[in-house]
């Protein structure tokens, strides 16, 4: 049974809330009363709960099964985190309350900042970025500010071709020109090509490490040194920090700025597409340019909020404000809860188990699926395969949709771009061996069918809430809002 839209079952006269009567005074709306219908239907509470419950059951989620999306790090979201974020002392405080009335909130931010600095070996962190891509922007703005501060108007950012799409987009959004750097045969940045391109016009590089092939960049320190020698700065995309947390500190690799996806490494829920949270750690070179606001601790244990007004004293180089308030507080409480739960020993175990699980998948599949970089050594937290060897025109997409019929969410498809028909599998550390074995069994089955050219795969999935959806039609004439059927009809004419 398909779940209808609220516009098809609700009524503007129905409501799932009861409100007290308003005081009987004249309204004072400046003559702007909204007279026309708003046409937003309501449902009773029972209908509302059922509507969303039913819809939820059409979703795949970590709570339902293994979610091997490479580069997305779908690990378990502990329920304690949810409970802590809902404590009224965190959930029911206003961002503009006087700072004396929110000392616990400021201390929470301060403590989380301290964990992030310690784990990365970096001296500063900007907490306000709202997501990973926002963190990238933050890092690039700091780099640009630092260069401008020394009167250096460099205009180019170098980005490896394996980078997340956000990297070039961010650099462009901040006004930079973007140039690619090729990968070498082992899936790493071509150090020589990079060195050859460095020069007085290059503001810096954006490198993902571990990179999007799931590999550690062994030359990272050399890259950093080369960029620094050429007068540039190094941005690291930290989306894959969960592969090395507790075992490697980016600060030891010469990195100047790196964002951390709290919703990946530190288990805050993805929520079907956000909210994320992307704090950015900074080297000493970038620290003075960090955005407002941030939290400082004074000698007497008081927590102090540095914002526009107070920044003038001792943080006059800040490049300014990126968001209205303090960042994703709700994610901070969850991430801090997660860190305290794991501790230094647990976080090390996290990265070890994540890497172990990924290598276990890699070695359990490489006889069946081409693993382009497997020969050069172990992978980090994710295993990369290509569709070389599929027959009968079958593609990575078909394998992915076939996995759906096996009861799994597909792996990441066609990313990174450097591998043909790329399939990026990241089991994460919260999966048991039994769960991974079962997944490998399913993946081997579908991979075998893809190599054998099984025609049925082309029309997979067959057992999902929907068959393949027509994305082309959706994009050609976008229908983004519901319209009364009559209007549909007119639109179709």
């Amino acid at each position, binding site marked *: 049974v398909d779940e209808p*839209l609220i516009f098809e079952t609700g009524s503007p006269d129905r409501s799932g809330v009861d409100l007290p009567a*308003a005081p009987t*005074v*004249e*309204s004072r*709306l400046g003559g*702007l009363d*909204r007279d026309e219908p*708003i046409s*937003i239907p309501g449902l009773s509470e029972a209908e509302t709960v059922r509507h969303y419950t039913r819809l*939820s059951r*059409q979703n795949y989620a970590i709570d339902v099964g293994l979610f091997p*999306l490479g580069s997305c790090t779908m690990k378990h979201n502990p329920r304690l985190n949810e409970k802590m974020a809902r404590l009224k*002392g965190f959930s*029911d*405080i*206003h*961002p503009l*309350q*006087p700072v004396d009335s*929110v000392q*616990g909130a400021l201390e929470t931010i301060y403590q989380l900042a301290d964990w992030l600095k310690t784990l990365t070996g970096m001296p500063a962190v900007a907490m306000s970025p709202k*997501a990973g*891509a*926002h963190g990238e922007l933050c890092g690039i703005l700091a780099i640009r500010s630092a260069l401008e501060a020394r009167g250096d108007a460099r205009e180019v950012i170098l980005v490896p071709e394996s980078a997340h*799409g956000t990297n070039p*987009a*961010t650099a*462009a*959004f901040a006004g930079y020109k973007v140039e690619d750097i090729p990968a070498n045969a082992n899936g790493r940045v071509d150090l020589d090509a990079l060195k050859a391109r460095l020069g007085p016009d290059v503001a810096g590089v954006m490198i993902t490490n571990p990179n999007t092939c799931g590999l550690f960049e062994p030359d990272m320190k050399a890259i950093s040194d080369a960029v620094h020698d050429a007068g540039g700065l190094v941005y690291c995309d930290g989306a894959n920090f969960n592969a090395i947390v*507790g*075992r490697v500190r980016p600060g030891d690799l010469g990195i100047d700025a790196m964002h951390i996806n709290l919703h990946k490494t530190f288990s805050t829920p993805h*929520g*079907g597409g956000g*909210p994320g949270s992307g704090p950015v750690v900074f080297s000493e070179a970038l620290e003075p340019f960090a955005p407002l606001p941030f939290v400082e601790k004074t000698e007497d244990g008081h927590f102090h909020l540095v914002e526009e007004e107070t920044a003038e004293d001792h943080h006059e180089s800040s490049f300014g404000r990126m*968001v*209205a*308030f303090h960042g994703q507080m*709700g994610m901070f409480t969850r991430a801090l809860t997660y860190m305290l739960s794991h*501790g*230094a020993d*647990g976080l*090390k*175990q996290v990265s*070890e188990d994540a*890497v*172990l*699980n990924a*290598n276990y998948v*890699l070695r359990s599949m490489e006889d069946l699926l081409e693993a382009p970089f497997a020969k050069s050594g172990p992978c980090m937290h994710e295993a990369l395969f290509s569709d070389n060897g599929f027959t009968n025109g079958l593609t990575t997409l078909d394998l992915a949709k076939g996995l*759906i019929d096996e009861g799994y969410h597909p792996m990441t498809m066609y990313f990174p771009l450097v591998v043909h028909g790329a399939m990026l599998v990241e089991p994460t550390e919260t999966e*048991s*061996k039994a769960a991974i074995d079962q997944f490998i069994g399913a993946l081997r089955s579908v991979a075998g069918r893809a190599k054998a050219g099984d025609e049925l795969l082309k029309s997979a999935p067959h057992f999902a809430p929907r068959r*393949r959806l027509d*994305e082309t039609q959706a*994009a050609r004439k*976008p*229908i983004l*809002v*519901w319209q009364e059927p009559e209007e549909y009809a007119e639109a179709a004419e």
Partner: protein
Amino acid sequence: MRYLPLTPNDRQDMLATIGASSIDELFVDVPEEARLDGPIRDLPMHAGEMAVEAHMKKLARNNSAAGDMPFFLGAGAYRHHVPASVDHIIQRGEFLTAYTPYQPEIAQGTLQTLFEFQTQVARLFGVDVANASMYDGSTACWEAIVMARRITKRGKAVLSSGLHPHYVSVAKTMARFTKDQLVSEAPTLDAATDGADLLDQIDDDTSCVVVQYPDILGRVSDMSALAEKAHSHKALLIAVVTEPVALGAIKAPGQMDADIVVGEGQSLGVGLQFGGPYVGLFGCKQKYVRQMPGRLCGETVDAEGKRGFVLTLSTREQHIRREKATSNICTNSGLCALAFTAHMTLLGEKGLRELAMLNHKKAVVAADRLAKINGISLLNESFFNEFTLVLDKDARPIVRKLADQKILAGVSLGRLYPDENDLAHGLVVAVTETTSDEDVETLALALEGELA
């Protein structure tokens, strides 16, 4: 360790399959000098739920929760009652622990709610289309300015003095790097908005004029003339709504011919949360849809002809277009959008209108009570649920002092505009359905005490 299922035996078996003798072998690519031995120093070891809960509760207790005392803050974040079922819905594991719906066949739950969300937002704003949400209102506002630049190919944006100062700050931060020209001033303590001044600023170089509605001082005024003037110069009117509940009582910006309407959706479903995560709302006229940033959910059919929903127009987005993308955004605020749409579904038009009038009329009563105090005058002739009081002295120390007395009195303009001495006497007071008559009286008495 309760989140890690591998047993020591499992690890040994898996290493054997891999053909490695130790975990260290898997980290061979990490240069020796960058590897850490043992757990990172200066951090505690793992801890059980009880210990972690005790730690976090201690931090939480050290904050004054709004619900525990009279509370009057607004200025871009509003305290509304969120029905219990909303939190139940967003805690469903299938919503909470799902990823971006890149595989639509097994993500119809998220996708249909986004489609419903887009429709609700578009109708609320009075525009044709809306996207699947942005980070928050302040970043949505900047994205709207960039979108106007893309559409008009002009770089001058005229910002109303009534625009939230943080939103202005965010725009200034970005404009410094993108070389956009921003025209912006601080507000004055005047009953009228700066609409007339803005009319004069619009010229043929203008990409857009950006107006907040209701504005930072709580004032509401008709934007139609601005839209007309903007359009006559082929510029766009961008309206910014930080309190969406207001649109249950006052005309939608789209009804006044705004081209792009953005806003902060926190008021519905999300809660205060010390400023985040919130949910940015973004809608526009149909003709600009392909210039809109952010995720979009669209209707389509599956291979059997059944209706279904997919993310669409992703050719605008970074993972396809890379440096040519309309924005670098690659998340929305999905779970907050779900909370918003669930709350809106519970309300319906009837509930939304009732809620809005309840807010407004409670605010009217409160404004009249507070304006009676010697040393206080009410700035606003009209407002929704928030208004500005002008005190006969600096408001900021009073706000701090009242907070120590467990009264959260409102937002002083001194906090928002530390450099503007002319505004120091201003106090912005928000009143919602959660404000009781006793709360208002408590505030009134406390202010009387301070101003006597």
